[in-house]
Protein backbone atom coordinates (compact mmCIF):
# COMPACT_ATOMS: atom_id res chain seq x y z
CA UNK A 1 0.00 0.00 0.00
CA UNK A 2 1.25 3.44 -0.81
CA UNK A 3 -0.52 6.59 0.33
CA UNK A 4 -0.42 10.01 -1.22
CA UNK A 5 2.16 12.49 0.07
CA UNK A 6 0.78 16.02 -0.33
CA UNK A 7 2.57 19.19 0.74
CA UNK A 8 0.50 22.22 1.75
CA UNK A 9 2.43 25.40 1.08
CA UNK A 10 2.00 29.12 0.34
CA UNK A 11 5.17 31.21 0.39
CA UNK A 12 3.61 33.95 2.46
CA UNK A 13 2.86 33.35 6.11
CA UNK A 14 -0.50 33.74 7.76
CA UNK A 15 -2.67 32.75 4.80
CA UNK A 16 -3.96 29.57 6.42
CA UNK A 17 -1.60 26.69 5.61
CA UNK A 18 -1.74 25.14 9.05
CA UNK A 19 -5.49 25.68 9.43
CA UNK A 20 -5.97 24.07 6.02
CA UNK A 21 -3.74 21.12 6.93
CA UNK A 22 -5.62 20.53 10.20
CA UNK A 23 -9.05 20.76 8.60
CA UNK A 24 -8.26 18.66 5.53
CA UNK A 25 -6.66 16.01 7.73
CA UNK A 26 -9.71 15.92 9.97
CA UNK A 27 -12.09 15.88 6.99
CA UNK A 28 -10.26 13.01 5.28
CA UNK A 29 -10.13 11.06 8.54
CA UNK A 30 -13.87 11.59 8.99
CA UNK A 31 -14.30 9.92 5.58
CA UNK A 32 -12.62 6.83 6.97
CA UNK A 33 -9.15 7.43 5.54
CA UNK A 34 -6.03 6.98 7.60
CA UNK A 35 -4.21 10.29 7.66
CA UNK A 36 -0.95 11.50 9.14
CA UNK A 37 -0.14 15.19 9.39
CA UNK A 38 3.56 16.03 9.32
CA UNK A 39 4.55 19.36 10.82
CA UNK A 40 7.58 20.58 8.83
CA UNK A 41 7.66 23.95 10.57
CA UNK A 42 10.66 23.33 12.86
CA UNK A 43 11.05 25.99 15.53
CA UNK A 44 7.58 27.48 14.90
CA UNK A 45 5.32 24.48 15.24
CA UNK A 46 1.61 25.20 15.46
CA UNK A 47 -0.16 22.21 14.04
CA UNK A 48 -0.37 20.46 17.41
CA UNK A 49 -2.04 23.56 18.87
CA UNK A 50 -4.68 23.75 16.16
CA UNK A 51 -5.51 20.12 16.68
CA UNK A 52 -5.60 20.55 20.46
CA UNK A 53 -2.87 17.91 20.82
CA UNK A 54 -0.07 20.03 22.25
CA UNK A 55 -0.05 18.39 25.69
CA UNK A 56 0.23 14.91 24.20
CA UNK A 57 3.42 15.48 22.21
CA UNK A 58 6.26 13.37 23.65
CA UNK A 59 8.66 12.71 20.78
CA UNK A 60 9.29 14.55 17.53
CA UNK A 61 10.48 13.59 14.08
CA UNK A 62 14.08 14.17 15.24
CA UNK A 63 13.94 11.36 17.79
CA UNK A 64 12.55 9.09 15.10
CA UNK A 65 15.48 9.96 12.82
CA UNK A 66 18.08 9.55 15.55
CA UNK A 67 16.61 6.18 16.50
CA UNK A 68 15.71 7.31 20.03
CA UNK A 69 12.13 6.23 19.51
CA UNK A 70 10.08 4.23 17.05
CA UNK A 71 7.82 5.96 14.55
CA UNK A 72 4.71 4.66 16.34
CA UNK A 73 5.86 6.24 19.59
CA UNK A 74 6.26 9.68 18.05
CA UNK A 75 2.89 9.66 16.29
CA UNK A 76 0.19 11.41 18.32
CA UNK A 77 -3.21 9.84 17.70
CA UNK A 78 -6.10 12.26 17.60
CA UNK A 79 -8.55 11.87 20.47
CA UNK A 80 -11.63 12.43 18.26
CA UNK A 81 -10.64 10.76 14.99
CA UNK A 82 -8.48 7.75 15.74
CA UNK A 83 -7.51 7.36 12.08
CA UNK A 84 -5.77 10.75 12.28
CA UNK A 85 -2.21 11.05 13.57
CA UNK A 86 0.28 13.87 13.94
CA UNK A 87 4.04 13.68 13.58
CA UNK A 88 5.26 16.75 15.49
CA UNK A 89 8.15 19.01 14.54
CA UNK A 90 10.85 19.93 17.03
CA UNK A 91 10.02 23.28 18.59
CA UNK A 92 13.44 23.83 20.13
CA UNK A 93 15.38 23.47 16.88
CA UNK A 94 15.42 25.30 13.55
CA UNK A 95 14.95 24.37 9.90
CA UNK A 96 18.51 23.09 9.52
CA UNK A 97 17.85 20.31 12.03
CA UNK A 98 16.66 18.07 9.19
CA UNK A 99 17.68 17.51 5.56
CA UNK A 100 15.47 17.03 2.49
CA UNK A 101 16.71 13.42 2.23
CA UNK A 102 15.65 12.69 5.82
CA UNK A 103 12.25 14.26 5.19
CA UNK A 104 11.83 12.12 2.10
CA UNK A 105 12.66 9.03 4.12
CA UNK A 106 10.10 9.95 6.80
CA UNK A 107 7.24 10.68 4.39
CA UNK A 108 8.13 7.56 2.42
CA UNK A 109 7.87 5.39 5.53
CA UNK A 110 4.58 7.01 6.56
CA UNK A 111 3.04 6.53 3.12
CA UNK A 112 3.46 2.78 3.57
CA UNK A 113 0.89 2.73 6.36
CA UNK A 114 -1.30 5.81 5.81
CA UNK A 115 -3.68 6.71 2.96
CA UNK A 116 -2.68 10.37 3.16
CA UNK A 117 0.50 12.06 4.36
CA UNK A 118 -0.15 15.82 4.57
CA UNK A 119 2.96 17.94 5.09
CA UNK A 120 2.46 21.38 6.64
CA UNK A 121 5.13 23.56 5.04
CA UNK A 122 6.65 26.58 6.79
CA UNK A 123 6.42 30.03 5.18
CA UNK A 124 9.30 31.15 2.99
CA UNK A 125 11.32 29.63 0.15
CA UNK A 126 14.41 28.58 2.09
CA UNK A 127 15.46 25.30 3.60
CA UNK A 128 12.21 24.73 5.48
CA UNK A 129 10.36 24.84 2.17
CA UNK A 130 12.88 22.56 0.45
CA UNK A 131 12.58 20.06 3.32
CA UNK A 132 8.79 20.09 3.22
CA UNK A 133 8.49 19.45 -0.52
CA UNK A 134 11.24 16.83 -0.68
CA UNK A 135 9.07 13.76 -0.31
CA UNK A 136 5.85 15.15 -1.79
CA UNK A 137 4.26 13.92 -4.99
CA UNK A 138 1.47 16.52 -5.02
CA UNK A 139 1.24 20.09 -3.82
CA UNK A 140 -1.57 22.30 -2.59
CA UNK A 141 -0.90 26.04 -2.63
CA UNK A 142 -2.91 28.17 -0.21
CA UNK A 143 -3.35 31.87 -0.85
CA UNK A 144 -5.66 34.73 0.06
CA UNK A 145 -7.01 37.25 -2.48
CA UNK A 146 -4.34 39.84 -1.70
CA UNK A 147 -1.69 40.99 -4.16
CA UNK A 148 1.20 40.12 -1.85
CA UNK A 149 -0.10 36.61 -1.11
CA UNK A 150 -0.82 35.97 -4.79
CA UNK A 151 2.64 37.20 -5.78
CA UNK A 152 4.25 34.81 -3.29
CA UNK A 153 1.99 31.96 -4.40
CA UNK A 154 3.13 32.58 -7.99
CA UNK A 155 6.76 32.31 -6.90
CA UNK A 156 6.03 29.11 -4.98
CA UNK A 157 4.24 27.54 -7.95
CA UNK A 158 7.30 28.30 -10.10
CA UNK A 159 9.61 26.69 -7.52
CA UNK A 160 7.33 23.65 -7.17
CA UNK A 161 7.25 23.16 -10.92
CA UNK A 162 11.01 23.41 -11.30
CA UNK A 163 11.34 20.89 -8.46
CA UNK A 164 9.24 18.49 -10.56
CA UNK A 165 5.98 18.90 -8.61
CA UNK A 166 3.73 19.50 -11.55
CA UNK A 167 0.17 20.78 -11.55
CA UNK A 168 -0.08 22.17 -8.02
CA UNK A 169 -3.67 22.96 -7.03
CA UNK A 170 -4.90 26.12 -5.37
CA UNK A 171 -7.00 26.83 -2.29
CA UNK A 172 -8.20 30.42 -2.17
CA UNK A 173 -8.73 31.24 1.49
CA UNK A 174 -10.46 34.06 3.40
CA UNK A 175 -12.57 35.08 0.41
CA UNK A 176 -14.96 37.97 1.03
CA UNK A 177 -17.68 38.14 -1.63
CA UNK A 178 -18.92 41.56 -0.48
CA UNK A 179 -15.48 43.07 -0.98
CA UNK A 180 -15.10 41.38 -4.35
CA UNK A 181 -18.48 42.71 -5.37
CA UNK A 182 -17.36 46.22 -4.37
CA UNK A 183 -14.16 45.72 -6.40
CA UNK A 184 -12.11 46.04 -3.22
CA UNK A 185 -10.73 42.50 -3.41
CA UNK A 186 -9.35 40.30 -6.18
CA UNK A 187 -11.95 37.89 -7.52
CA UNK A 188 -11.45 34.15 -8.06
CA UNK A 189 -11.06 34.89 -11.78
CA UNK A 190 -8.43 37.58 -11.16
CA UNK A 191 -6.37 35.20 -9.04
CA UNK A 192 -6.68 32.28 -11.45
CA UNK A 193 -5.77 34.46 -14.43
CA UNK A 194 -2.40 35.22 -12.86
CA UNK A 195 -1.63 31.88 -11.25
CA UNK A 196 -2.94 29.69 -14.09
CA UNK A 197 -3.45 26.61 -11.91
CA UNK A 198 -6.43 24.44 -11.05
CA UNK A 199 -8.68 25.64 -8.24
CA UNK A 200 -9.13 22.98 -5.56
CA UNK A 201 -11.29 24.99 -3.21
CA UNK A 202 -12.67 28.36 -2.19
CA UNK A 203 -12.95 29.12 1.55
CA UNK A 204 -15.02 32.13 2.61
CA UNK A 205 -13.81 34.37 5.42
CA UNK A 206 -15.44 33.18 8.63
CA UNK A 207 -14.89 34.29 12.21
CA UNK A 208 -15.75 30.78 13.33
CA UNK A 209 -12.46 29.59 11.84
CA UNK A 210 -10.58 31.82 14.30
CA UNK A 211 -12.75 30.71 17.22
CA UNK A 212 -12.38 27.01 16.47
CA UNK A 213 -8.67 27.36 15.75
CA UNK A 214 -8.04 28.95 19.13
CA UNK A 215 -9.99 26.17 20.76
CA UNK A 216 -7.99 23.43 19.05
CA UNK A 217 -11.12 22.04 17.40
CA UNK A 218 -10.91 22.26 13.58
CA UNK A 219 -14.06 23.78 12.09
CA UNK A 220 -14.97 20.66 10.12
CA UNK A 221 -15.74 18.96 13.45
CA UNK A 222 -18.71 21.25 14.09
CA UNK A 223 -22.06 19.45 14.17
CA UNK A 224 -23.40 21.75 11.45
CA UNK A 225 -20.25 23.06 9.78
CA UNK A 226 -20.55 26.69 8.65
CA UNK A 227 -19.70 27.48 4.96
CA UNK A 228 -15.96 27.56 5.65
CA UNK A 229 -16.12 24.10 7.23
CA UNK A 230 -18.30 22.80 4.43
CA UNK A 231 -15.76 24.13 1.92
CA UNK A 232 -13.01 22.08 3.61
CA UNK A 233 -15.20 18.98 3.58
CA UNK A 234 -15.76 19.53 -0.15
CA UNK A 235 -12.01 19.82 -0.75
CA UNK A 236 -11.53 16.47 1.00
CA UNK A 237 -14.08 14.96 -1.39
CA UNK A 238 -12.26 16.47 -4.38
CA UNK A 239 -8.97 15.01 -3.13
CA UNK A 240 -10.76 11.66 -3.10
CA UNK A 241 -11.54 12.13 -6.77
CA UNK A 242 -15.18 13.18 -6.44
CA UNK A 243 -16.44 15.84 -8.79
CA UNK A 244 -17.82 18.46 -6.40
CA UNK A 245 -18.58 21.87 -7.93
CA UNK A 246 -16.81 24.87 -6.42
CA UNK A 247 -19.28 26.96 -4.45
CA UNK A 248 -19.25 30.47 -5.82
CA UNK A 249 -20.07 32.88 -3.05
CA UNK A 250 -21.94 35.69 -4.75
CA UNK A 251 -23.74 38.44 -2.90
CA UNK A 252 -27.46 38.16 -3.59
CA UNK A 253 -30.02 40.92 -2.98
CA UNK A 254 -31.47 39.22 0.03
CA UNK A 255 -28.18 39.03 1.91
CA UNK A 256 -25.12 36.85 1.85
CA UNK A 257 -26.00 34.53 4.71
CA UNK A 258 -29.43 33.83 3.28
CA UNK A 259 -27.79 32.70 0.06
CA UNK A 260 -25.31 30.55 1.90
CA UNK A 261 -28.07 28.93 3.93
CA UNK A 262 -29.97 28.29 0.73
CA UNK A 263 -26.91 26.61 -0.76
CA UNK A 264 -26.72 24.12 2.05
CA UNK A 265 -30.38 23.67 2.87
CA UNK A 266 -30.59 20.91 0.29
CA UNK A 267 -27.96 18.81 2.04
Amino acid at each position, binding site marked *: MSGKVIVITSGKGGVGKTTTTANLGMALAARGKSVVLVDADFGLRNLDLLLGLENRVVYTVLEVLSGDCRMEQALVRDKRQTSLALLPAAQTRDKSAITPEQMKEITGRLSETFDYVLVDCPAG*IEQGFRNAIAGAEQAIVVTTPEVSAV*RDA*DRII*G*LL*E*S*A*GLKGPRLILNRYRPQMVEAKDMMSVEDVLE*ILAVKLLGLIPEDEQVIVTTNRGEPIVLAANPPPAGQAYLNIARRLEGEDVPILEFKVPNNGFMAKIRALFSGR
Partner: protein
Amino acid sequence: MQTLPNSLPTQVSFKGTSEGLKLLVPVELAWDEVILQLQQRLNAGERLWQGGAPVILEVKDRLLDGPQLQAIDALLAAQQLRLVKVRTLRRQTAVTAAVNGLSVDQTDSTPPKDPSNPEPLYVHTTLRSGMRIAHPGPIVLVGDVNPGAEMVSDGDILVWGTLRGLAHAGANGNANALIFALRLQPTQLRIADRVARAPDTPLATPQPEVAYVSENTIHICYISEYTRRR
Protein backbone atom coordinates in the same frame (compact mmCIF):
# COMPACT_ATOMS: atom_id res chain seq x y z
CA MET B 1 19.51 53.10 -14.10
CA GLN B 2 21.70 50.07 -13.68
CA THR B 3 24.83 49.75 -15.77
CA LEU B 4 24.25 47.77 -18.92
CA PRO B 5 25.81 44.31 -18.98
CA ASN B 6 28.42 43.75 -21.64
CA SER B 7 27.02 40.46 -22.78
CA LEU B 8 24.20 38.24 -21.58
CA PRO B 9 24.96 34.63 -20.78
CA THR B 10 23.49 32.12 -23.17
CA GLN B 11 20.72 29.90 -21.83
CA VAL B 12 20.45 26.16 -21.69
CA SER B 13 18.58 25.43 -24.89
CA PHE B 14 17.29 22.64 -27.12
CA LYS B 15 17.74 22.67 -30.86
CA GLY B 16 16.25 20.25 -33.37
CA THR B 17 18.86 19.02 -35.86
CA SER B 18 19.07 16.32 -38.49
CA GLU B 19 20.99 14.04 -36.10
CA GLY B 20 18.50 14.49 -33.27
CA LEU B 21 17.67 16.88 -30.49
CA LYS B 22 20.69 18.92 -29.47
CA LEU B 23 21.00 20.12 -25.87
CA LEU B 24 23.33 23.08 -25.56
CA VAL B 25 24.81 23.76 -22.13
CA PRO B 26 26.83 26.98 -22.06
CA VAL B 27 30.28 27.02 -20.47
CA GLU B 28 29.78 30.00 -18.22
CA LEU B 29 26.59 29.01 -16.36
CA ALA B 30 26.85 27.82 -12.74
CA TRP B 31 25.84 24.18 -12.32
CA ASP B 32 22.75 24.94 -10.16
CA GLU B 33 21.58 27.31 -12.85
CA VAL B 34 22.12 24.67 -15.56
CA ILE B 35 19.89 22.20 -13.72
CA LEU B 36 17.22 24.83 -12.99
CA GLN B 37 17.09 26.00 -16.60
CA LEU B 38 17.09 22.44 -17.94
CA GLN B 39 14.13 21.60 -15.71
CA GLN B 40 12.32 24.71 -16.87
CA ARG B 41 12.93 23.85 -20.53
CA LEU B 42 11.82 20.27 -20.03
CA ASN B 43 8.68 21.31 -18.16
CA ALA B 44 7.84 23.86 -20.79
CA GLY B 45 8.61 21.99 -23.97
CA GLU B 46 6.63 18.78 -23.66
CA ARG B 47 5.04 19.13 -27.03
CA LEU B 48 8.24 19.91 -28.85
CA TRP B 49 9.61 16.39 -29.03
CA GLN B 50 8.40 12.85 -29.22
CA GLY B 51 9.02 10.09 -26.72
CA GLY B 52 12.31 8.25 -27.09
CA ALA B 53 13.97 11.03 -29.07
CA PRO B 54 17.78 10.78 -28.98
CA VAL B 55 19.58 13.74 -27.42
CA ILE B 56 23.07 14.97 -28.16
CA LEU B 57 24.57 16.94 -25.32
CA GLU B 58 26.85 19.71 -26.47
CA VAL B 59 29.03 21.28 -23.77
CA LYS B 60 32.03 22.79 -25.62
CA ASP B 61 34.70 23.64 -23.03
CA ARG B 62 32.56 22.88 -20.02
CA LEU B 63 33.92 20.29 -17.63
CA LEU B 64 31.32 17.70 -16.64
CA ASP B 65 31.87 15.08 -13.96
CA GLY B 66 30.12 11.74 -13.69
CA PRO B 67 27.38 12.75 -11.21
CA GLN B 68 26.58 15.85 -13.30
CA LEU B 69 26.29 13.79 -16.46
CA GLN B 70 24.05 11.33 -14.66
CA ALA B 71 21.89 14.16 -13.32
CA ILE B 72 21.31 15.47 -16.85
CA ASP B 73 20.61 11.96 -18.09
CA ALA B 74 18.06 11.39 -15.29
CA LEU B 75 16.21 14.63 -16.06
CA LEU B 76 16.05 13.77 -19.75
CA ALA B 77 14.96 10.20 -19.04
CA ALA B 78 12.07 11.50 -16.92
CA GLN B 79 10.72 13.08 -20.12
CA GLN B 80 11.37 9.93 -22.17
CA LEU B 81 14.38 11.51 -23.82
CA ARG B 82 17.48 9.38 -24.41
CA LEU B 83 20.95 10.83 -23.95
CA VAL B 84 23.06 9.13 -26.65
CA LYS B 85 26.06 11.29 -27.31
CA VAL B 86 28.21 13.95 -25.69
CA ARG B 87 30.04 16.47 -27.80
CA THR B 88 32.85 18.11 -25.89
CA LEU B 89 36.16 19.84 -26.47
CA ARG B 90 37.63 18.52 -23.23
CA ARG B 91 39.32 15.18 -22.95
CA GLN B 92 38.27 14.68 -19.33
CA THR B 93 34.58 15.18 -20.09
CA ALA B 94 34.92 12.85 -23.06
CA VAL B 95 36.37 10.14 -20.81
CA THR B 96 33.58 10.64 -18.25
CA ALA B 97 30.97 10.28 -21.00
CA ALA B 98 32.60 7.16 -22.37
CA VAL B 99 32.77 5.60 -18.88
CA ASN B 100 29.01 6.24 -18.61
CA GLY B 101 28.40 4.34 -21.83
CA LEU B 102 27.72 7.29 -24.09
CA SER B 103 29.19 7.90 -27.48
CA VAL B 104 31.56 10.82 -27.62
CA ASP B 105 32.38 13.39 -30.24
CA GLN B 106 35.34 15.65 -29.61
CA THR B 107 34.78 17.96 -32.56
CA ASP B 108 33.09 21.33 -32.60
CA SER B 109 30.05 20.91 -34.83
CA THR B 110 28.79 24.45 -34.88
CA PRO B 111 30.64 27.10 -36.81
CA PRO B 112 31.60 30.07 -34.66
CA LYS B 113 28.51 32.16 -34.15
CA ASP B 114 28.15 35.62 -35.55
CA PRO B 115 28.02 37.68 -32.34
CA SER B 116 26.07 40.45 -34.05
CA ASN B 117 23.26 38.06 -34.91
CA PRO B 118 22.59 35.71 -31.98
CA GLU B 119 19.93 33.05 -32.28
CA PRO B 120 16.43 33.61 -30.91
CA LEU B 121 15.22 31.74 -27.83
CA TYR B 122 11.76 30.19 -28.00
CA VAL B 123 10.14 29.34 -24.67
CA HIS B 124 6.71 27.97 -23.94
CA THR B 125 5.95 28.61 -20.28
CA THR B 126 4.37 30.87 -17.69
CA LEU B 127 7.18 33.03 -16.39
CA ARG B 128 6.38 33.34 -12.69
CA SER B 129 7.50 35.73 -9.97
CA GLY B 130 11.22 35.32 -9.25
CA MET B 131 12.04 33.73 -12.61
CA ARG B 132 14.35 35.46 -15.04
CA ILE B 133 15.19 34.75 -18.65
CA ALA B 134 18.23 36.52 -20.03
CA HIS B 135 19.40 35.79 -23.56
CA PRO B 136 21.59 37.66 -26.06
CA GLY B 137 19.24 37.02 -28.98
CA PRO B 138 15.55 37.85 -29.35
CA ILE B 139 13.17 36.06 -26.93
CA VAL B 140 9.83 34.64 -27.97
CA LEU B 141 7.73 33.58 -24.99
CA VAL B 142 4.43 31.79 -25.40
CA GLY B 143 2.59 32.32 -22.10
CA ASP B 144 2.23 35.03 -19.49
CA VAL B 145 5.00 36.98 -17.78
CA ASN B 146 3.76 37.51 -14.23
CA PRO B 147 4.59 40.41 -11.90
CA GLY B 148 7.98 39.82 -10.31
CA ALA B 149 9.37 37.99 -13.36
CA GLU B 150 12.04 39.45 -15.64
CA MET B 151 13.00 39.07 -19.28
CA VAL B 152 16.23 40.57 -20.58
CA SER B 153 17.42 40.45 -24.19
CA ASP B 154 19.95 42.31 -26.30
CA GLY B 155 17.37 42.06 -29.09
CA ASP B 156 13.56 42.13 -29.26
CA ILE B 157 11.13 40.57 -26.80
CA LEU B 158 7.88 39.03 -27.99
CA VAL B 159 5.31 37.84 -25.46
CA TRP B 160 2.48 35.75 -26.83
CA GLY B 161 0.40 36.31 -23.72
CA THR B 162 0.08 38.98 -21.05
CA LEU B 163 3.23 40.86 -20.04
CA ARG B 164 2.76 41.90 -16.40
CA GLY B 165 6.36 41.70 -15.23
CA LEU B 166 9.51 43.49 -16.33
CA ALA B 167 10.91 43.35 -19.86
CA HIS B 168 14.24 44.83 -20.93
CA ALA B 169 14.93 44.78 -24.68
CA GLY B 170 18.13 45.99 -26.32
CA ALA B 171 19.93 45.51 -23.01
CA ASN B 172 23.35 46.03 -24.62
CA GLY B 173 22.31 49.55 -25.60
CA ASN B 174 20.33 48.91 -28.79
CA ALA B 175 17.56 51.53 -28.75
CA ASN B 176 16.01 50.04 -31.89
CA ALA B 177 14.90 46.98 -29.96
CA LEU B 178 11.16 46.39 -29.54
CA ILE B 179 8.89 44.78 -26.97
CA PHE B 180 5.71 43.12 -28.24
CA ALA B 181 2.90 41.64 -26.17
CA LEU B 182 -0.65 40.49 -26.82
CA ARG B 183 -1.57 42.31 -23.62
CA LEU B 184 0.90 44.87 -22.37
CA GLN B 185 0.41 45.53 -18.64
CA PRO B 186 4.02 45.57 -17.49
CA THR B 187 5.40 46.56 -14.12
CA GLN B 188 8.14 48.29 -16.05
CA LEU B 189 9.54 48.40 -19.58
CA ARG B 190 13.17 49.04 -20.45
CA ILE B 191 14.65 49.53 -23.89
CA ALA B 192 18.42 50.13 -23.96
CA ASP B 193 18.91 52.62 -21.09
CA ARG B 194 15.36 54.07 -21.10
CA VAL B 195 12.79 53.12 -18.50
CA ALA B 196 9.01 53.43 -18.70
CA ARG B 197 6.02 52.44 -16.64
CA ALA B 198 2.76 51.26 -18.15
CA PRO B 199 -0.23 53.61 -18.07
CA ASP B 200 -2.06 53.32 -14.74
CA THR B 201 -5.33 52.40 -16.40
CA PRO B 202 -5.05 49.35 -18.66
CA LEU B 203 -6.94 49.27 -21.95
CA ALA B 204 -10.59 48.35 -21.63
CA THR B 205 -10.33 46.13 -24.69
CA PRO B 206 -6.76 44.86 -24.79
CA GLN B 207 -5.07 44.75 -28.16
CA PRO B 208 -1.58 43.58 -29.12
CA GLU B 209 0.83 46.42 -28.50
CA VAL B 210 4.46 47.28 -29.14
CA ALA B 211 6.89 49.43 -27.18
CA TYR B 212 9.62 51.31 -29.04
CA VAL B 213 12.00 54.21 -28.52
CA SER B 214 11.37 57.43 -30.35
CA GLU B 215 12.86 60.83 -29.52
CA ASN B 216 14.67 59.31 -26.58
CA THR B 217 11.58 58.04 -24.74
CA ILE B 218 9.63 54.79 -24.79
CA HIS B 219 6.31 54.91 -26.63
CA ILE B 220 3.58 52.32 -26.82
CA CYS B 221 1.11 51.82 -29.66
CA TYR B 222 -1.08 49.13 -31.21
CA ILE B 223 0.89 46.74 -33.35
CA SER B 224 -1.52 47.41 -36.22
CA GLU B 225 -0.69 51.13 -36.11
CA TYR B 226 3.02 50.48 -35.79
CA THR B 227 3.24 48.25 -38.85
CA ARG B 228 1.10 50.66 -40.87
CA ARG B 229 3.45 53.52 -40.06
CA ARG B 230 6.60 51.65 -41.09
